[in-house]
């Protein structure tokens, strides 16, 4: 729908993890593009493959992972780069705000030193200059008294402050593409809103892949939203269209599960990624499923302007 070249294009990405029980098919022929300056929310539940997609773009998956397809960044396929070439892109051009588990920062290094390390590595600043840059970054993410907090260890930071520090770390090199993995997980309502505000403040003109299970957060930040289920994108489109008039039965079920939208649960549970159901992956839980849904695997088809869904009813 846009004439601009996408900044990042994922084509037919399939990711599998070999385990003793069989191959875990974490992502299946994912097609996705991220346009310059847009925030795309990748919405999905635990095990839907959203983090795997983010980590595949950064090439941070384990070496024995089976990866097929292409990930084109400014026209270059990231999957065929050498590790050395990838290191020049990772952090500098494509940065990540890791999931805030309390373990994403090194507990035995001062927060300022961890940020200074990234600055030294990618921008070549040394000693006092790198430290000053770290303080500036902490100030930018609205850490109160940044010069003092830079000398503190991560355990002195609250959950919200750690999240800010992780954002500062990702911003160290002014990346043109930011992947944020569940940045609001585990934060309370007020802190969450502050972090979302910070995100819209720091990212004008930057492309962001915002991985989240939080529908409200996706609605606040994203221009487009992609919904993942069992390793596949089942619906993708403009945020208003997808969240106010969803097409795919899973998206509808997910939205209806929200306490503020009636809290009607989807029956059943997500399928095992080792033995996926034949046909449509959502069909065992879908109230509208007919015989064809259990046999044929649906493709993504256009259901509206810039809006695609993977459902037989629209084929």
């Amino acid at each position, binding site marked *: 729908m846009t004439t601009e070249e996408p900044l990042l294009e994922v084509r037919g990405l399939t990711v599998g993890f070999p385990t003793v029980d069989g191959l875990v098919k974490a992502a299946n022929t994912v097609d996705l593009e991220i346009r310059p300056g847009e925030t795309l929310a990748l919405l999905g*539940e635990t095990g839907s493959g959203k983090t795997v997609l983010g980590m595949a773009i950064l090439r941070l998956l384990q070496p024995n992972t089976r990866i097929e397809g292409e990930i084109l960044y400014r026209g270059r396929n990231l999957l065929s780069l050498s590790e050395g070439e990838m290191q020049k892109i990772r952090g500098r051009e494509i940065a990540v705000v890791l999931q805030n588990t309390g373990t994403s920062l090194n507990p035995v290094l001062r927060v300022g030193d961890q940020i200074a390390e990234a600055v030294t590595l990618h921008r070549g600043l040394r000693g006092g200059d790198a430290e000053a840059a770290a303080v500036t970054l902490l100030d930018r993410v609205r850490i109160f008294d940044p010069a003092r907090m830079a000398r503190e260890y991560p355990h002195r930071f609250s959950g919200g402050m750690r999240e800010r520090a992780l954002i500062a770390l990702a911003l160290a090199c002014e990346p043109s593409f930011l992947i944020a993995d569940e940045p609001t997980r585990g934060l*309370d309502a007020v802190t969450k809103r502050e972090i979302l505000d910070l995100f819209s403040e720091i990212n004008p003109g930057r492309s962001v892949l915002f991985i989240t299970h939080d529908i409200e957060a996706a609605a606040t930040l994203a221009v487009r939203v992609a919904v993942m289920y069992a390793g596949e994108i089942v619906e993708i489109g403009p945020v208003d269209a997808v969240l106010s008039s969803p097409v795919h039965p899973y998206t509808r079920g997910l939205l*209806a599960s929200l*306490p*503020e939208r009636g*809290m009607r649960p*989807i029956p059943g*549970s997500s399928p095992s990624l080792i033995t996926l159901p034949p046909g449509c992956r959502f069909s065992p839980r879908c109230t509208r499923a007919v015989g064809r849904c259990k046999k044929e695997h649906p493709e993504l088809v256009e259901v509206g302007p810039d809006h695609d869904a993977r459902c037989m009813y629209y084929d």
Partner: protein
Amino acid sequence: MMHGACTMIDICDLKTYYSAGFLHRTEVRAVDGVSFGIEKGETLGLVGESGCGKTTLGRSVIRLIEPTGGRVVFDGTDVTALSRKDLRRFRRRMQMIFQDAYTSLNPRMRVSESIAEPLRIHRIEDRAGIDRRVRDLIEAVGLNEEHLNRRPYELSGGQNQRVVLARVLALEPEFIVADEPTAGLDVSVQAQILTLFRDIWREYHTTCLYISHDLGVVRAMSDRVAVMLKGRIVEIGQVADVLDHPCHPYTRLLVAAPVDDKEFSCPVSAGAPAMVEVRPGHWVEATAR
């Protein structure tokens, strides 16, 4: 001030202080003079940001943490005055559901043993009776007999929370403190667990203190809601009153209400902070000025 005809639990000036800091010389007032009542069959939601004292309050009410002062009267009995032995017997009537179901369950016990344990400890059933009750309970929470032989690590987060609920229901408690029981669960699983809780609580007419920082969840689960800030309740009332017409500045921040709502401004007190009834059953702590 907030006592109904059939108050199930009555909390009066409850205080829980911790000592912290260098040589334990700093006093942290996690719960600092809290009073409210919960009627029989009612669910009171407790909201507030992390660190405001809501978990400490929940645990102090059933004496998992010893309160520093104040009283908790449960169905006419002063819980704070019970001996340890009497308290243990009394606990059968007051149960707790914790945030993390996985760590609430003994990893070495099969699901069947976990559910049978409270029945055995409180000597509620004989062996045959226990087996029958365990099978009834596992079905009541939407699992089946096949799950009875599993261990917690073989179940998902939502399934473990169902096992915890079965364990709690085994004792048929009249009062349940639920502390963020769906934090960390996916929305669709959360909806499954919450509708299950709600249906069962309605069926058994259970009284509940529901702790959460998720306002959407609290709205869906509670009849009334209390807002906690720095160890104190600053606003309490019917869910629709408090969340749609918040008066206290902190509640307004929490629900992101427009700042210039003159109609429901916070009452001002000249002296010490005091609770003021702004509408029937809707109490707000007056701000000092």
